[in-house]
């Protein structure tokens, strides 16, 4: 342990930690901008400067390792004056038209400017000097350079956390800016639309493309029947935007709010998550049978999940040789979309052209996914509009709803019922766990041999997780799996995904089934979730997801009565012709650069 003194307070902290870590331990707040706990240290914004006795100049608390006997002062005249200067410098480069900004009231620069009472002594306004551009080409992410403070959080996110490197620093000096790879527009650059950059942007330089107005328009259009689906992770994140602490489950209030907003039917993506398990589980078992029994060498294993559109686009760019390994299942959002305009329309006696299908997602890549040309199997655009958790919160505020006071309501029927297995889709390892709960039972006739169905080895925040499930005494139809050890792997965050896939590609790993989610922590840490997102917040949302699962009366996808019903009434059976038509898809090879 290293002992140091900050503002007269003695602190002990492990070696290798920084002054910033120590100050937090001592409950002394040092402001930061470029620092983000998910990312490596940058030390480039300099607002965290403090005085270290004996050091030349001031030091950046986020980048300076502690050492024995250090004496730090965080609030001297010099520190305060310098910090104010730095904030004023940032503001001078920044388009501070706050009232028109999407991040107004949730902007780290704005709150810092407010604290330091910047104003009259401002430096020259540099904004007119700059040729700032707004890139609106992407269906998911909007990049406004005039709001950028060049902290490079997005660059580090894209490179270190996601191994994508769509965003990069270009030029130097006064012309230095955050650009895209080869300055390509966001639409053309190799970007997975994951939105993790948005989640870490301290200002409004990176935001999701807003679709709120289109949704209001559809709601107000009397000739339209507007259905809405909500992803599992939304219900454990939405509360944060509306006054609840992180990790609050607000499912019932969210349903009430959606009904009050005027949606004609409030349904659940979790229904199609359960359906995904039926389709994907059957696909896995079929692949295993073809590979193990029929010895069909054209069958590609490991099979990989396909729920995460960020991951899908990543693999299309980076691992195009593995597209046949991807499950052909559409994501739950897109399964829902195509069923909304076929099955739902039929059952409700509606003309699908009058149905507007909206989804609420923790994700920005879902906006891109809904736009994919493959996603029109109903004969229409399967999902018309995708809103992030944040956008839904804005609609709720716009409608003047007192969210915290709302009563709990249930999803509408037909495509609104789901199981605990679907809920955990929102957490890393959740799809794997849901699939195992169902597949194991289909094969053996017994429940998975884990206490309370909780398959702990696939849970948690480790970057790459592995699990082996041994199949013993299967039922007659699956006899060939007797004694087979089903080897599974799970990765979340694209850097981890790349690591895992590389080991598969190099032949170093031998799995049957892989779950990959593009975002750290899975969908609950998605790019469309409330800002800020941190490890602590992801942990709280995870806890909430598993609580929600435990609270569900049914916790296995194959026991969802609505799923049984849709197979009886409409689809026939998993992997039927109809389900292939509506619930499965193809992938396209994309360029690496």
């Amino acid at each position, binding site marked *: 342990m290293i002992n140091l003194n900050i503002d007269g307070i003695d602190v002990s902290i492990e070696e290798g930690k920084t002054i910033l870590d120590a100050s937090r331990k001592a409950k002394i707040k040092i402001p930061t901008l470029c620092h983000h706990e998910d990312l490596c240290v940058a030390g480039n914004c300099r607002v965290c400067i403090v005085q270290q006795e004996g050091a030349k*100049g001031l030091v950046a608390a986020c980048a300076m390792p502690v050492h024995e006997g250090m004496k730090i002062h965080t609030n001297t005249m010099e520190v305060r004056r310098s910090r104010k200067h730095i904030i004023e*410098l940032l503001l001078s480069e920044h388009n501070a038209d706050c009232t028109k900004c999407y991040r107004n009231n949730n902007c780290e620069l704005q709150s810092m400017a407010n604290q330091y009472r910047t104003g009259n002594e401002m430096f020259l306004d540099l904004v007119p000097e700059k040729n700032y551009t707004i890139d609106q080409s992407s269906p998911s992410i909007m990049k406004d350079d005039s709001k950028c403070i060049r902290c*490079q959080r997005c660059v580090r996110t894209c490179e270190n956390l996601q191994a994508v490197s769509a965003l990069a*620093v270009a030029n130097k000096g006064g012309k*230095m800016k955050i650009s895209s790879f080869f300055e390509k527009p966001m639409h053309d650059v190799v970007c997975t639309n994951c939105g993790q950059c948005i989640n870490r942007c301290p200002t409004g330089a990176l935001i999701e493309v807003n679709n709120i107005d289109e949704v209001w328009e559809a709601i107000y259009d009397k000739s339209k029947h507007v259905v809405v689906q909500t992803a599992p992770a939304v219900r454990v994140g939405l509360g944060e935007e509306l006054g609840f602490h992180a990790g609050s489950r607000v499912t019932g209030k969210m349903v009430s709010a959606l009904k009050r907003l005027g949606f004609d039917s409030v349904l659940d993506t979790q229904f199609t998550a359960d359906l995904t398990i039926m389709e994907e589980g059957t696909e896995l078992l079929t692949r295993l049978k073809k590979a193990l029994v029929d010895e069909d060498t054209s069958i590609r294993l490991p099979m990989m999940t396909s729920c995460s559109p960020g991951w899908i686009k990543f693999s299309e760019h980076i691992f195009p040789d593995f597209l046949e390994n991807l499950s052909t299942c559409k994501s739950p959002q897109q399964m829902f979309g195509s069923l909304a305009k076929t099955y739902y329309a039929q059952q409700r006696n509606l003309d699908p052209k009058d149905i507007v299908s909206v989804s609420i997602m923790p994700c920005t890549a879902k906006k891109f996914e809904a736009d994919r040309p493959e996603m029109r199997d109903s004969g229409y655009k399967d999902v018309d509009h995708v809103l992030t958790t944040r956008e839904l919160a804005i609609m709720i505020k716009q409608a003047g709803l007192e969210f915290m006071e709302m009563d709990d309501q249930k999803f509408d029927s037909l495509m609104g019922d789901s199981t605990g297995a679907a809920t955990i889709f929102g957490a890393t390892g959740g799809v794997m766990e849901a699939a195992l709960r169902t597949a194991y039972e289909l094969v053996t006739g017994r429940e998975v041999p884990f206490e309370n169905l909780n398959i702990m080895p696939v849970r948690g925040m480790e970057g790459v997780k592995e699990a082996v499930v041994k199949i013993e005494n299967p039922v007659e139809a699956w006899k060939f799996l007797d004694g087979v050890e089903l080897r599974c792997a799970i990765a979340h965050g694209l850097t981890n995904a790349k690591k895992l896939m590389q080991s598969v590609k190099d032949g170093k790993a031998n799995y049957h089934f892989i779950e990959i989610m593009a975002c750290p922590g899975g969908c609950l840490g998605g790019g469309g979730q409330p800002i800020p997102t941190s490890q602590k917040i992801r942990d709280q949302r995870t806890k909430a997801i598993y609580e929600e699962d435990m609270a569900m009366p049914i916790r296995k996808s194959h026991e969802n009565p609505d799923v049984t019903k849709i197979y009886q009434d409409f689809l026939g059976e998993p992997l039927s012709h109809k389900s292939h038509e509506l619930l499965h898809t193809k992938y396209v090879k994309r360029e690496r650069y």
Partner: protein
Amino acid sequence: MAENKQLKRVDIIFSEECGFKEILSDALKMDNEKIVDELLNSGLRGRGGAGFPTGMKWKFTAQEKGDERFIICNADEGEPGTFKDREILFKVPYKVFGGMAVGAKVIGAKEGYIYLRGEYKFLLNDLQKHLDEFHKTLDALDFDFRIHIVTGAGAYICGEESALFESMEGKRGEPRNKPPYPTVSGYKGKPTVINNVETLVYAFMICRLGSEKFKELGTDDSRGSKVFSVSGDTPIAGIYELELGMPLQDFVDEFGDGDTKAVQVGGAAGFCVPRKKFKDTVIGFEGVPTGGSMMVFNSSRSMFNVIHNYLEFFEEESCGQCTPCRVGCQQLLLGVEAVKRGDKSIDYLDELLKLSQTMKLTSKCGLGQSVANSFSSIVDNFREEMIY
């Protein structure tokens, strides 16, 4: 200006009659401790400008654990007004290689690199030829060490040692956070000695001359001699090896044109000394240090133009990663323009001076930290020229 007052010339760096191979083979037989002791005793400090004791640098790196270490010659000579490393590499490249080999022996490096300024690519062919010869000499001495030359791409910031490592690693040339220092984690994260071209030659020559001889030159704080690049309003612009610790007045008496109003010591990142302070200013680490650049200005020069030129340079050459340097340089540049135009009051210069102090205190690397040197020394001393 009297010729009998001429400053003492020194001839260590460029002297050809040094018996290069003999020095090399003797040095490679010396004890590492002995070499370090000699360097420490000599008082040799880095000649790139920052002045860190060379012996300490070598000693620290030698003490680090790890299988791989590097020695790097910083030949990214980019400071405005400096051109002495170019001359050294052109005239006595083998002495630079020799210094690297001795350093490699002390720290246990098998590989060394010369990071050659992009604009000096014209030196590359000759340098490589000399290097091939040098490698043969090393082989003959049975010393396992190889030097590679890498070229920069023209960014001033890459002369900053940690930005130089980044550049060598194929990344954007941006300075790193310090600590860790290069002696602990430099090129490829390995313990690294990085020395200026001139420093390596002195280190090499100290092995021959002995530290006592070297110490006879200079002052307590600034031992030995130094190569100066003299430019500007001087009838005898050029490269001179002079004893350190000279009063600036003596320098002006010899190199000025009789009408010298200021000398910019240490390039754009250095200090501007006005006429009234020539007598009290010592050129050396105890006074005004320089990496070699001495720019002489006579009374026909506008000091506004001088600082404007420097600020334009810094505004463009800042890597842009840290706020005080990136935005500070822009504000200083546009600020002095606004004052000159009358758009901002004279008092705004005081705001800018305060800002330059913030840049000095808070910038991540030496670039941003040293903008205040020229800015405050010019604005303070030539305030009226900023306005009228």
